[in-house]
C-alpha cells in the first residue's frame, strides 16, 4: 500500500482510538451498568485478503453489525460488530430480555443495538473533535444480523467504494463479567489523513 504510515502516525491513530473509545466505553458502562474495558486499539492497512485478521470472529458465525457514515472534517465509516452472544449481553442489560434467535430480532432489539452504536460513535467523534477541533457529524446507523464475513465484507465494500486503500482502526472492548466481545471499526477516507496529521502536528 502507498502512503506508508510511519510508526509515529500509526501510534497517533492508535491513541485516537484509545481516547475516542475510552469515553464511548464509559458511556456504555453507564448505560448498561456493566463495566466494559478496552483492548489496545490496532491500526490495520486493509488489504482485502487479510480480512480474517480483522475482528476475531469465525466467518460464518452470527453477528450483529451496524454502520454509520461520518461526515465533516475527518469523514469515513464507523462500524460496530457484536457476536450474537455479546449482543445478547447488551439486550439483557438494556431491556432485560433477549431474542431466542434471528427470527425474533424485532425492531426493539434492533433499536437497542442502533442506540448503543449511536452513543458510542457519538462519544468517539466528540473526543476526536475536542482533540482536533474538527467538525464531525454522523448519519443514523444501519443494522444487519448475518454471517460475520458477510457483514464485515459489506462494511468494507461500502468504505472501499470511493477509494482504493482502506485503513481500519480497530478497537475491541470486553467485560470480565460476561462472555462479551465488541468490535469497533473506524474506516476513515484515507485522502483526509493528512489533514488529521496536520492538525496533530506530525
Amino acid at each position, binding site marked *: 500500500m502507498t502512503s506508508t504510515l510511519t510508526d509515529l502516525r500509526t501510534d497517533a491513530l492508535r491513541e485516537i482510538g484509545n481516547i475516542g473509545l475510552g469515553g464511548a466505553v464509559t458511556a456504555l458502562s453507564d448505560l448498561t451498568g456493566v463495566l466494559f474495558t478496552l483492548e489496545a486499539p490496532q491500526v490495520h492497512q486493509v488489504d482485502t485478503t487479510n480480512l480474517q485478521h480483522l475482528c476475531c470472529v469465525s466467518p460464518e458465525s452470527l453477528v450483529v453489525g451496524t454502520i454509520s457514515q461520518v461526515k465533516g472534517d475527518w469523514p469515513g465509516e464507523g462500524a460496530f460488530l457484536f457476536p450474537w452472544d455479546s449482543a445478547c449481553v447488551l439486550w439483557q442489560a438494556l431491556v432485560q430480555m433477549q431474542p431466542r434467535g434471528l427470527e425474533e430480532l424485532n425492531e426493539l432489539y434492533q433499536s437497542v443495538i442502533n442506540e448503543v452504536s449511536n452513543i458510542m460513535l457519538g462519544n468517539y467523534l466528540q473526543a476526536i473533535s475536542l482533540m482536533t477541533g474538527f467538525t464531525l457529524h454522523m448519519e443514523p446507523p444501519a*443494522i444487519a444480523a*448475518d454471517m460475520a464475513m458477510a457483514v464485515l465484507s459489506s462494511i468494507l465494500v461500502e468504505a472501499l467504494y470511493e477509494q482504493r486503500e482502506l485503513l481500519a482502526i480497530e478497537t475491541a472492548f470486553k467485560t470480565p463479567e460476561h462472555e462479551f466481545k465488541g468490535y469497533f471499526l473506524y474506516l476513515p477516507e484515507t485522502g483526509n489523513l493528512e489533514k488529521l496529521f496536520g492538525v496533530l502536528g506530525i
Partner: protein
Amino acid sequence: MAEVRLAGMGEIVSTRGSGVVGCIGLGSCVGALLYDPRTQVAGLAHVMLPEAHEQDAFTTPGKYATTALPALLRHLDTPAALASRLKAILIGGAELFQSRSQTLRIGERNVAMLHHLLSELRINIVFEHTRGNSGRSFEFDVATGVLRVRVVGGTQVERDLSVALGIMPKAA
C-alpha cells in the same frame, strides 16, 4: 466433499475436471462462476464492486465486475468470441444494511453489471441465488455439478446443475 478452494475478496480461483470451489460469507459481493463444458474448467471470481475505478484492476482483476469477466476468460483460456459456450452461476449481491441501501446499493449494482456483461458475451446464466438481504456461502463441485448455497440460520439450497452445465456423467 473434497477440500474447497475458496476465493477470498477480489480473488479468482479455477480448477479443471474435479475439485470444489466456493466463497464464504458473501454480502454485497458476488461469486461469479464460469464453466466451460468443453474443457471442464471452472473459474470463480469474488467480485466486490461493479466497476474498476483505479489501476489496481490490473493487480486484482477479480475485484471488479468489469475486469473479473475478462480475467475469468483468460483463466478458462476461452477467447471472448467463443464465450457463448460458457455457462455462468451467480451467487450473492445482497443488501445486508437495508436502511442504508438507498445510497450505494452495491449488491444490486454488482448483480446488474454482471448480468449486463454476461449478456454482452452471450453467456447463459444457468443458476443464480442473488439479491435479497441475506449473506451467503456456497460450494460448487466441478466433477458432479452440485451446488450448495448456505444462508445464515442453517438454511441450505442444493442443486444438481450437471445437465444445465453439460457435465458428462463419469463412466462407471
